[in-house]
Structure formats: C-alpha cells, structure tokens
C-alpha cells in the first residue's frame, strides 16, 4: 500500500515538472514525427513560448529552499543558456539544442530536489535501479568527451557534478535507497545529455531554407 502511495506522489511530482502545454522536447518530437530538430518549427512565436516555459520552470527551481551546490551550479548554467537562446545570432538548430540542454539541467535540478526528499528503503526496485545506474554510468563517461568538444568554460564543473551525482547515486544504491539512487542517477544522466546538446549547439550547422 505504501509503495502505491509513493508511486502516485512520484507521478504527480514528474507531472509538475512537465507542464501540459507540450513544450518539452519529447512531446514535440512525438507530434512532429519525422524531424525533431526541424528548425522550421521554431517560429518566433514558439521560441517565445519556449523561453517563457523555461523561465517559469527556472523560477520554480530557484525558489526551492536550500538548493545545494549542484543545484546552484545548474541554475546558474540554465540562466546562462536561456540568455544565449535569447541572442539573435542563435539559429533555430542552436535554439533547439540549447532549449533541450536547459530543459535537461532544470529537470536534473528537480531530480536532485526529489532525491533529497526521498530517503526511503525499497528492496523491490533493486534490480531496476542497478540496470538504470549502469546506463547512467555510461552517460557519465560520455560527459567528458562532450565537455571537451562543447567549448564551455564551465565544462570541467559539468563533468565534476555529473560524476559527483553518480557517486551519490551509488551511495544511495548501496544504502538500499533505490528510488533516491534512480533520481540522482537520472540527474547525472541529464547533465551529460545537456552537455551533449550544448556540444551540438556549438556546431556550425546552418538552418535549411524555409520553403514558402
């Protein structure tokens, strides 16, 4: 009975992180079908909607009490990325990648906060947590490469926080706090994914011509 309540709480928490206006990338890709990055989708109006969505989520995260060093770092980086998105020289592809990177950082922040609230012991999730952490570990290892090609000034700190969060996830796993381990591991993966998106944003890829 207790785990059912926990599951409901977790679902509600995740739902609060992804508002219903379908601006998060996964939802958009599902709707558009073929080309998720298609820069033609990022019209000026939608860009504005995206920025507003990120700003709203950012505000929610920043208001959290006792954010901790990782979240402070993530919030700072998210703020910087939002500023870069607003710059006029950012083309649609770069906007799309930076949007995803910012979204990943804010979701990582959310996972960290949830993990701190959740310290329960649950043996039933052990195997799933182990497999999930295995995947996270691979993403954490990738972070170093993406940091190297991203050109970010704070690249080393990204990598450092990714590893730190993964270590915390391992510690939680060892303490049989599997839900917490999954959340921390997910946070580390999301930061690595953000690094990947930032690295992709650094590529000089021109937008395809708009066919009218």
């Amino acid at each position, binding site marked *: 009975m207790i785990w059912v309540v926990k599951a409901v709480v977790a679902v509600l928490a995740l739902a609060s992180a992804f508002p219903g206006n379908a601006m998060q990338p996964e939802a958009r890709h599902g709707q558009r079908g073929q080309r998720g990055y298609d820069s033609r989708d990022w019209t000026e109006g939608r860009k504005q909607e995206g920025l507003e969505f990120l700003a709203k989520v950012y505000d929610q995260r920043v208001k959290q009490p006792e954010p901790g060093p990782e979240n402070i770092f993530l919030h700072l980086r998210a703020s910087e990325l939002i500023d870069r998105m607003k710059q006029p020289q950012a083309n649609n*592809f770069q906007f799309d990648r930076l949007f995803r990177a910012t979204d990943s950082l804010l979701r990582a922040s959310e996972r960290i906060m949830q993990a701190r609230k959740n310290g329960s012991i649950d043996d039933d999730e052990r195997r799933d947590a182990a497999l999930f952490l295995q995947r996270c570990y691979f993403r954490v290892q990738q972070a170093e*490469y993406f940091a190297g090609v991203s050109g970010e000034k704070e690249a080393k700190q990204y990598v450092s926080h990714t590893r730190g969060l993964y270590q915390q996830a391992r510690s939680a796993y060892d303490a049989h706090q599997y839900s917490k381990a999954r959340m921390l591991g997910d946070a580390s993966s999301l930061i690595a994914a953000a690094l*990947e998106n930032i690295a992709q944003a650094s590529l000089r890829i021109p937008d395809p011509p708009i066919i009218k």
Partner: protein
Amino acid sequence: MFWPAPASFRAQATIIAAASLAVVGLAGFIVYRAIRTTEGALVADSRQLCISACNELREQYEERIKEGDLLQMPPEAQDLSLTGISQTVLRTFEGVDGGIYLPKQDYVMGYAAPPRPAGPRPRPRGPRWEFIRSLAERAMSSSEIVTGERPYDTTYLVAAAVRSKSGEAVIWTMRRTLVARDPLMEEGRWWLAALVFSSVLGVFGIVSIWHMLRSGVEGVQRGLHRLEDDFTHRIPTMRGDFGLIAMAINRMAERRMALEEELRRQDRLAALGKVVSGVAHEVRNPLNSMKLKLQLLERRLTKGIPASDEIQEALREIDRLDMIVSRLLAFGRPAILNRQVQALQPLVEQAIRMVQEPAHKKDVRFETREMEDSLEVDVDGPQIVQVLINLFLNAIDASSPSGLVRVGAERSNGCVRVAVSDQGSGIAEEVKPHIFDAYYTTKPNGSGLGLAVSREIVANHGGRLELETSPAGTSFFLMLPIDRSRPL
C-alpha cells in the same frame, strides 16, 4: 660414458632414430609455438577484442537510438553524439577503433580511434575503408556478428561488424595486429621453416642410413650363420661398404676352404705315412722271424735233423701276417651295419666276459653301476661289443694291479652315454691329440688300431667317442644316439 651403451646394433639404431624423431617433434613444437604466439594467437586475441567491442558498441548505439532524437538530427550532430558513444566504449578496448557505417549514405559516423603519439587517427580510407565496407556488406546480409582479417602494410587488420536492429546501420570495430607481419618475425618464420625442413631431411637421411645399415648387418649376420654350417655358402653381393665386407668374408671362406683342403691332403699323406710305417713295422717282425726260422730250417734240413717246430713257427708267423692284413683291410673297408634296437646291459656284460682273462691276470676288478632295464640302443651289437672290449682292454692296461674299472650308462640329451673309467695315471697332454690316430700306440705290443677302429665304428652309428683324463684316471665316454635319424 655415464651409462652402458647398448651393444646391439639394432638398439643403437633405434635410439638414434628415436632421438631424430624427438628432434623433429621439438622443431615442430617450436614452429607451432612460434606461429601460435605470433599470428594465430594475436589475430585470435584481436578478433575476440573486436567482437567484444562491437557488441558493446551496438548495445550502446541501440540504447541511444531508443532515446528517439538521434536519427532526426543533422549528420554533424549525429556524428558528434555517436562519436561520444564510440569514444566512451572503445577506450576500454585497447587499440580498437570503430564506428557506425550507414550503407545508404556509404558513410561512417561516430568514428573513434585510440589515441596515438602521432595525433588522431584519420578516418579509414583506401584499403582499410574497402575492408570495412566489404565486411559491412557481409554483416548486412547476416543476423550474426561477422569477422574478417587481412594483411595491411606490415600489420594484420582484424575487424568485426554487426547489423543494427533496425537494419539502417552497421556497427564495426577494427584492430591492427602488429606482430604477425613484422619483417623480423617473418624472417624468423623462414628460419623455423628451414629448421623443420632440415630436420625432416635429416631424419629421412638417418632412417635411410639406418635401413641400409640394418639390412647390411642382417645380411652379413645371416651369411655368417649359414657359413657356420655350410662353408660353401657365399654371402650375396651387396652395395656399398657392406658389399666390400661381404666380399672379404667370401674371400676368407674360400681361402679357408683351400687351406682345409690342403690340410686334409696333408693329413691324408701323414695318415698314409703312418699306416705304411705301421704296416711295415708290423710286417717286418713276422718276416724277420720267418727269415730266422727258415734259415734254421735250412741248416737242420742240411744236417738231416727234423725241423717240424720251425715249420710250425713259420706258419704261425704267416698267420700273424694274415691277421695284420685282415685288420688293415677291415679298418679301410666301409662298415656295413646290422643295427637293431636292443638292451645295452647284455652287450656290456658280454664285453666284460671277453676281457675276464687279462683282467684276472692283472687282478683288475670291474664295477658295473646299475643300469635301467629300459636302456636300449639301436646298434650293430657285435661292433659295439668290439668297441667296449677295446675300451675295457685300454682301461685294464692303464690300471695298476688290483685296480678298479667302473662302467656306467645313462640316458642324456637324446643319447645313451656309456662311461668307462679307470684309476690309472691319466694320458699325457702330448699323447692326447693322437690317441685316436691309426697305428699310434704307446704300448710295446699295441697295434695302434684299437681306438681308431672304435671311433670309426661309433661314428658309423652317428655317435661320438670322447675322453676326459687327469692324473687320477681316464674316462672314455661312448655316446650313441637313441634315434638313428638324429645323429649326434
């Protein structure tokens, strides 16, 4: 030598052949190890490494595909993401590079190579690229992981490839194996091959020599064995040194035969001389006696004195001459045997009875050991009795007064052995070689034919007459075969 060397040629040859085979085996083992440790093992290790890396890369690629956005990105962005995967996966596989080949675009994405001092490895091109492409084509038509290897410069390229689940890409890995085509190793392999070849050649030569020596030695051995029984046999002609040895042996045999013939001729002459001198000696005595008697008879007849005694004496001397001539003829004439199986004991007893008188005169006793009733011989009875009489008379002559002559018989090794032993002073060494010669005698009144005739009779029966002598006495052994078809 720290151990005794085997005396037989065959054992020595076997040891040499075994040692040669051991050398070949060792050389083969060294070559096998060399190949195994260079090309075989290294290529196998590289292949296994490539397979493991390829499987891991595919797994991570599929995981990344599941996230959904990868295939919708521009190629540059895809390449960056996939390179992140390849870099992360392949850095744990030493010396392995790899990536994702897209057959439709004929392009490699996410290429990652191990760091090297000369800088980043360029993307595959030229023969390496063709190799990957051909392997990818094989992988596209197979659901399993495929592998391949090919020479490349001074190295071997070993690669593995597998099709992605969706079939739009081929994940591949490749490794350069440096040692197999190292020029020094190649040279070393030639030397090893030369070692094996020379070892095989050496063993072939040794086996040939061994075979030649063995057949040569066996041929000579067979020839020598035949020569022991038949001196007219000749060793067959052979090639090489054994042929020379065979020729030398044949020459020796011929010379020996010639020498033996010469000796026999001289023996015959010597024997004839002895016979002639013996006959002359035997005949002269009665002739002298007859001459004296006839001269006496002449004087008596002149004076008118009766001379019947002289005539009787002359007639006795003539009888004696007749006996001498008869015995001489008997000695030279081929014997006609009238053999039949009969008990031995009666023959011995008969002979003893015949010599009772001289034995009694000298007070010599005969001691006959108990003989088996079943002791039978296949002989001409009177002739064997004559032999026994001769042996007994010799024993009586050799015995001192009141001496003892022992007679015994037994069955031994397919023959019946009769022993006649006296307690005399034995036979002198210089006399012993001539004891069986005709007309050889040490007795004042001996004819010198007794033992010669006896040996002739025994030989005609397929037996042997031997003697053993010592200062304590002499023993004659009369050995007669039980089966007449198997002479001694």
